[in-house]
């Protein structure tokens, strides 16, 4: 992509977050939010250099198995138990521009719905060959992919009988710290999505649908793994061509 590397980095401020599209802070159906939600109005401000900039992560931080959760914790010659899947997609911004070099980190429960964590008490067993974390960096056109097993649903203490639908947690770095995002990916066709109090913190049905990855039959690998496609959209940024040039800039 010589075009992209020759281009000056973009320095415009990011589009304001659409706070009606995201979940509000206080969502009583998700009980933990009650004491952890700010109650005063946020201070809204156009981004400064402190938010327009952000850390970058070179491909050197990524190990060979980091994007393979089936093997990155497994004993040599063994692999994690579960339905083998490939999760892939593209990181774009709100303008539809690719976001190359974005660090994605992901984590999930094992095929039985159990996390490898000391605070986790669900009776489903640990898989000795599954750790549950992975990471990758998007390529020049914003594409990423990783291999894993499909996580299981699991119960959690909220209502008397609340269950999380199968999901994968994602953390994303774009090009500016203002784009920092953590979210969750769900799987097409799972009826539990619509029962989940955490999913339902998001008021807009279309916004929820943006978190549901469709089965990607075209990219499914015969006799190996099914594919799910999950695109991620980060905040767009204004063109610096529109900015007044002020002294000291």
């Amino acid at each position, binding site marked *: 992509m010589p075009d992209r590397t020759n281009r*000056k*980095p973009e320095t415009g401020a990011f589009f304001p*977050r659409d706070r009606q599209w*995201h*979940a509000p802070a206080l*969502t009583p159906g*998700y009980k933990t*939010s*009650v*004491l*952890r*939600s*700010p*109650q*005063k109005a*946020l*201070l809204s*401000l*156009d981004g*400064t*250099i*402190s*938010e*327009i*900039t*952000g*850390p*970058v992560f070179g491909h050197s931080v990524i190990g060979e198995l*980091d994007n393979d959760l089936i093997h990155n*914790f497994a004993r040599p010659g063994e692999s994690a138990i579960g339905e083998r899947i490939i999760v892939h997609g593209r990181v774009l911004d*709100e*303008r*539809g521009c690719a976001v190359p070099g974005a660090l994605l*980190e*992901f*984590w999930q429960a094992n095929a039985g719905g159990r996390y*490898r*964590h000391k*605070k*986790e008490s669900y009776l489903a067993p640990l898989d000795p060959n599954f*750790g*549950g*974390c992975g990471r990758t960096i998007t390529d020049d056109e914003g594409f990423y992919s990783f291999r894993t097993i499909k996580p299981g649903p699991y119960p959690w203490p909220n209502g008397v009988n609340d269950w999380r639908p199968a999901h994968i*947690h994602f*953390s994303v770095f774009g090009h500016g*710290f*203002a784009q*920092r995002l*953590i*979210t969750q990916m769900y799987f097409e066709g799972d009826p539990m999505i619509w029962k989940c109090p*955490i999913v339902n*913190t998001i008021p807009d049905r*279309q916004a929820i649908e*943006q*978190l549901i990855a469709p089965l990607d039959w075209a990219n499914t690998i015969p006799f190996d793994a099914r594919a799910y496609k999950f695109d*991620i*959209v*980060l905040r*767009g940024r204004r063109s610096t061509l529109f900015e007044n040039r*002020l002294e000291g800039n």
Partner: protein
Amino acid sequence: MVQQLGYLKETPSQTAGPYVHIGLTPNFCGIGGVYETDLGARMVNEQTLGERITITGRVIDGAGTPLKDALVEIWQADAVGLYNSPTELRGSADPNFTGWGRCPTAADDGVFTFETVKPGRVPFKDGRPMAPHITFWIVARGINVGLHTRMYFPEEAEANAADPLLARIEHRHRVATLVATGAAPNYVFDIHLQGEKETVFLDI
């Protein structure tokens, strides 16, 4: 009909949940052997330029209890006020300083700790210098959208008084929620999610 703008919607945020450490600091939570180190665990090395400082603090809920499952990230300029970012066009930042740190709050007392350097001043949009500050981002179970805020320095009273962001805070007693306590080199920055001392959070 007019042309369509064609903008996409931002992917909605979801809580980091109780197991955020599995993904972001696996070594911290006992998942060894996958990554050599946890990203952001160390911000400075022997060659990093500038005044060494330590920031400790807690993230406190509406009942006054520190969160023991939160994750805090910080982002800051180097000692002379340059960001280690491709978007920084004013010069080259200290190559021995990434400016980014990540720390879980401790399982016993909920304290986070960052060993870093005091940042230099960076300009506001109109060229006025902002007071030295560090950007904070907090995620945890129960937080639906990651919270942005800033920490300023207590010894910079004059610069803080002229800071364009602090000047935007209508209720002046709340400015103090963005200023660390303690003194160089040990600063304390507690973040209050609710209540009388609720930290000013930013939509920025």
